[in-house]
């Protein structure tokens, strides 16, 4: 018997596959292509206390083997989010991970407090968005700031908290240790790498925000390296992501040490990507006689 389930901080996902925040909405749109209930968990787009406008357009540009986005965390604020997104998700047979963003520690804490008694399984705290000026990345590249915000959020959170790390740092293990010192129950990584694209014909930045976050298969080797380093440096579960587009990719992250994996940019090219990753993991396990993912996790 093959058991694809994994458990993160006491929350059991029927398979290790979730989605990367911001790439899947809350699943409503992709539900036309994949039954959202098939997913181990849905990770929602980032939500703040009040509605955010996001950045001007163009918000995205294609890059070689990847893309760059500067959406800027547009979101309707927590109240509308609960009414619409959580209302939709709670009817699905999947775990719910809410991605939380804020302009200030208070805003993060405010969202987490508001979610205390809502049907949400895990909180993912996005301290690593490179596309908003205040908040976001500032917390994500300074270990002291990261530890502090983690402990603030942890105090108010009723659900386990996953701190989402930025790859735009010299030493990812230092950040991981800071988050764990602050009380993180789990970690997720990587967020996007800060990039820039110039349209030489228009002599203009390709995204209005000038810089954007690079994601997709192009960044996978960097993500695998960081997941490996973090899994060998701290003892909390890790959700791995960055360029995952196939079951092989997912298994690569699991072998590097990840407990669960997120499919992000791949959804844009292939709306069936999540289902294919789930099926592919099961097929791989069958083929190789693997009964539980524990057998291959962190084997290197």
């Amino acid at each position, binding site marked *: 018997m093959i058991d694809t389930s994994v458990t993160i901080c006491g929350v059991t996902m029927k398979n290790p596959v979730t989605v990367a925040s911001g790439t899947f*909405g809350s699943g409503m*749109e992709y539900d036309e292509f994949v039954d959202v209930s098939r997913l181990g968990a849905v990770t929602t787009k980032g939500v703040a206390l009040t509605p955010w406008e996001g950045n001007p357009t163009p918000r995205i540009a294609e890059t070689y*083997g990847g*893309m760059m986005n500067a959406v800027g965390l547009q979101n309707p*604020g927590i109240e509308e989010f609960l009414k619409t997104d959580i209302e939709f998700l709670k009817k699905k047979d999947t775990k719910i991970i809410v991605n939380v963003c804020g302009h200030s520690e208070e805003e993060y804490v405010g969202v987490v407090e508001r979610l205390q008694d809502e049907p949400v399984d895990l909180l993912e705290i996005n301290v690593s968005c490179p596309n908003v000026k205040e908040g976001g990345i500032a917390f994500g590249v300074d270990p002291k700031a990261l530890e502090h915000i983690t402990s603030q959020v942890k105090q108010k959170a009723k659900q386990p908290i996953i701190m989402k790390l930025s790859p735009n740092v010299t030493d990812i293990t230092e950040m991981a240790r800071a988050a764990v010192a602050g009380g993180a129950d789990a970690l997720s990584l990587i967020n996007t790498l800060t990039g820039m694209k110039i349209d030489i014909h228009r002599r203009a930045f390709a995204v209005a925000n000038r810089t954007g976050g690079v994601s997709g298969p192009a960044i996978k080797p960097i993500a695998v390296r960081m997941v490996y380093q973090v899994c060998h440096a701290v003892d909390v579960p890790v959700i791995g992501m960055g360029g995952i587009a196939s079951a092989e990719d997912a298994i690569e992250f699991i072998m590097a040490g990840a407990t669960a994996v997120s499919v992000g940019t791949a959804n*844009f090219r292939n*709306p069936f990507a999540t289902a294919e990753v789930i099926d592919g993991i099961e097929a791989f396990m069958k083929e190789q006689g693997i009964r539980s993912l524990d057998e291959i996790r962190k084997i290197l």
Partner: protein
Amino acid sequence: MSKHMITAEVVSQSRITEDIFSLVLKAAEIAKEAVPGQFVSLFSGDASRLLPRPISLCEINKNKGTLRLVYRIAGKGTKEFSAYKAGDTVQVMGPLGNGFQTECKSPILMGGGIGIPPMLELSKCLAEQGIDKKHLHVILGYRDSAFLADEFKKHATVHITSDSGLVGRKGNVVDCVREENLTGDMIYACGPTPMLRAIKRYAYENDIPAQLSLEEHMACGIGACLACVCKTAEVDEHFKVNTRRVCKDGPVFYAEEVEL
């Protein structure tokens, strides 16, 4: 109206100007449900290019189950498509977006440049709805050489303009509508933003409702990623901010809804 992601076979492709191509795809599932003003996402066969290329439906043949796309080579993706031959295949997602609302009696259709193709299916639909040729005005604006114009002539009164004056009258589509003193009960437009802005003003001045088809860079194409928003006059009901998604809430908006 459900969306499909399919492997479509190329039925035919032809070059209609220096850099504009006409591609017919077998995509029965999509054709079946498509309406004018909607678009499809075409995916590159080269894995280094991940994102969809949104292309409007120029013609929808529900009987044959085919879609016609007319597109200009703008970069590497469209360049790749232009090399496709009958029998080749391409990944297509659609139908996407809302499409035009076709209730009207005396429409004025305005297409500028590569905004012309979606006007063709629209004009055919309006003609099929029973609108007479003399009440169905189509104004086509070109840079310097015309394409598709003849195909409108069967069922619509066609006015041709060009920036250079090389085809039709010199000027743009708004100059034309003003000079011809055309009136109607609905304007439909697709083209570059400055053109849409001028049309919005014209429509406002003349108190004619206008449906404008917008463009924005896209990632998901289905409303999930919030890449493709446009500015709106009102706060969106769900998003709680002044933006709507071109890919899902659009690409067609009423002029008064959007800020250009």
